[in-house]
């Protein structure tokens, strides 16, 4: 479990990135922090692995204040995926993936065989292992970034807009891959994005942030869509946008879900086990 207890961050130049933020993240839960730039979401994420130290309050993992932990050991125990992949350009894909296990003292041979498995887990051809990052596409680099984060088998995975820099088709692909991986591995994931659709897709729970790390609303995607707390949330989730206000139309005996512009979004299936009632 990860707990933020009244954390705040004020930089030496006086700017306040986070005012006063509290949140508990259960083990094996995927929580998405979503907000525009300036919402402090990345700052909050980086407090978990001590890439940023809070000015006030504390961050605890399983009840232990991270401020008391050695930052290097802490970081080696937490997977971290960043936007620009952050791979080491002078090392092969395989060496990038084995970085953390080797730092932790795993033998190179063992780390390599595990790395090859991981490449498959993230949907990469192990034949790419000898390549250098610059020889891969953006999407492939992000997959390597995910494999690297998973390499030391961490309980916690931090993801900072990992799919922000790839094109929409690749992004959709990576998101599905992420869902599959999470179903398989059950990590505690803290995911940061400015894309509300991505947040709703990947998050068990979504935390919507206003500037300064103020929580506008948190809950499951369903809860937020069903009852947006205020106008800020309503406009952020696009509750009034055509694609989110759906209604049902009956066409040739089947019930079709249609958005506000009349575009078909899908077919409404009867609830499992029960007959449809009109």
């Amino acid at each position, binding site marked *: 479990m990860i707990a933020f207890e009244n954390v705040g961050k004020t930089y030496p130049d006086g700017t306040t990135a986070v005012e006063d933020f509290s949140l508990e993240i259960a083990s094996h839960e995927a929580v998405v922090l979503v907000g525009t730039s300036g919402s402090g979401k990345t700052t909050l994420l*980086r407090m978990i*692995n001590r*890439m940023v130290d809070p000015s006030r309050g504390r961050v605890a993992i399983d009840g232990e204040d991270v401020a008391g932990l050695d930052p*290097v*050991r*802490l*970081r*080696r*125990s937490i997977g*971290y995926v*960043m936007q*620009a*992949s*952050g*791979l*080491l*350009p*002078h*090392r*092969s894909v395989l060496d990038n993936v084995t*970085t*953390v296990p080797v*730092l*932790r003292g795993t033998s190179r041979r063992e780390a390599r065989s595990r790395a090859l498995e991981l490449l498959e887990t993230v949907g990469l051809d192990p034949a790419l292992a000898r390549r*250098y*990052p*610059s*020889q891969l596409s953006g999407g492939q680099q992000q997959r390597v970034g995910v494999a*690297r984060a998973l390499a030391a088998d961490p309980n916690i995975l931090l993801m900072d807009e990992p799919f922000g820099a790839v094109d929409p088709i690749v992004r959709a692909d990576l998101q599905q891959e992420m869902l599959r991986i999470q179903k398989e591995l059950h990590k505690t994931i803290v995911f940061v994005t400015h894309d509300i659709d991505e947040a709703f897709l990947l998050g068990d729970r979504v935390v919507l942030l206003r500037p300064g790390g103020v929580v506008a609303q948190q809950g499951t995607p369903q809860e937020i869509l069903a009852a947006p707390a205020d106008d800020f949330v309503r406009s952020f989730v696009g509750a009034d946008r055509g694609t989110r206000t759906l209604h049902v139309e009956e066409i040739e005996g089947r019930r079709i879900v249609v958005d506000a512009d009349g575009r078909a979004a899908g077919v409404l299936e009867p609830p499992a086990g029960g007959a449809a009632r009109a």
Partner: protein
Amino acid sequence: MTQLLEALAWIADPTRWSGPGSIPVRLLEHLWYTLLGVGIAALVAIPVGLLVGHTRRGRGPVVALSGAARALPTLGLVTLFGLWLGIGLTAPVLAFVILAIPSLLAGAYSACEAVDPRTVDAARAQGMTEWQILTRVEVPLGLPLLIGGVRLAAVQVVATVMLASYIGNGGLGRFIFLGLNLSDYPQMLGGSILVVALALVIDLALRLVERLTAPRGAART
């Protein structure tokens, strides 16, 4: 033209290529002084430069100091140190160390600074220690720039090492100063040509090293 030919003839004279005080001996002395100057300077300047580049702190004072060091006339330094420390190798080598430090410092800190800050940030976030970031990320990626600094320093020093002979040491400068004193211009010019040739060879060799140390994978983007 005649003088140049005479100088080349002076170099080509086989009697000058063996025995004490011959061209190979002076050449080796010259190289040795260069190595001493650049080597000692590197021991000081490269760690300091890497520290400045890695921490991004203290760049201002370091740039100011190396700017000031660059402005010092080496002949003046050799004379001054010679008066202090007496005839011998210590005085000129000290002057060469001061001459070499600015280029080495600049090469070392720019090697670190040239590395994408996001790459360094990612390495830190993976759990590398600061030492590991320096030795496994910044130095390998910035190595060509670091070697570039060594090359500049070596070329500057090799061209200046002839001043060592000015206060009684060996080196190719012996031919130049002897020629000057005896008005033996072919000898003087011959010595100069050898210094120029040596500088060119060192420059070329270190350029090759720069190219060989370019990190694989980083070139294609």
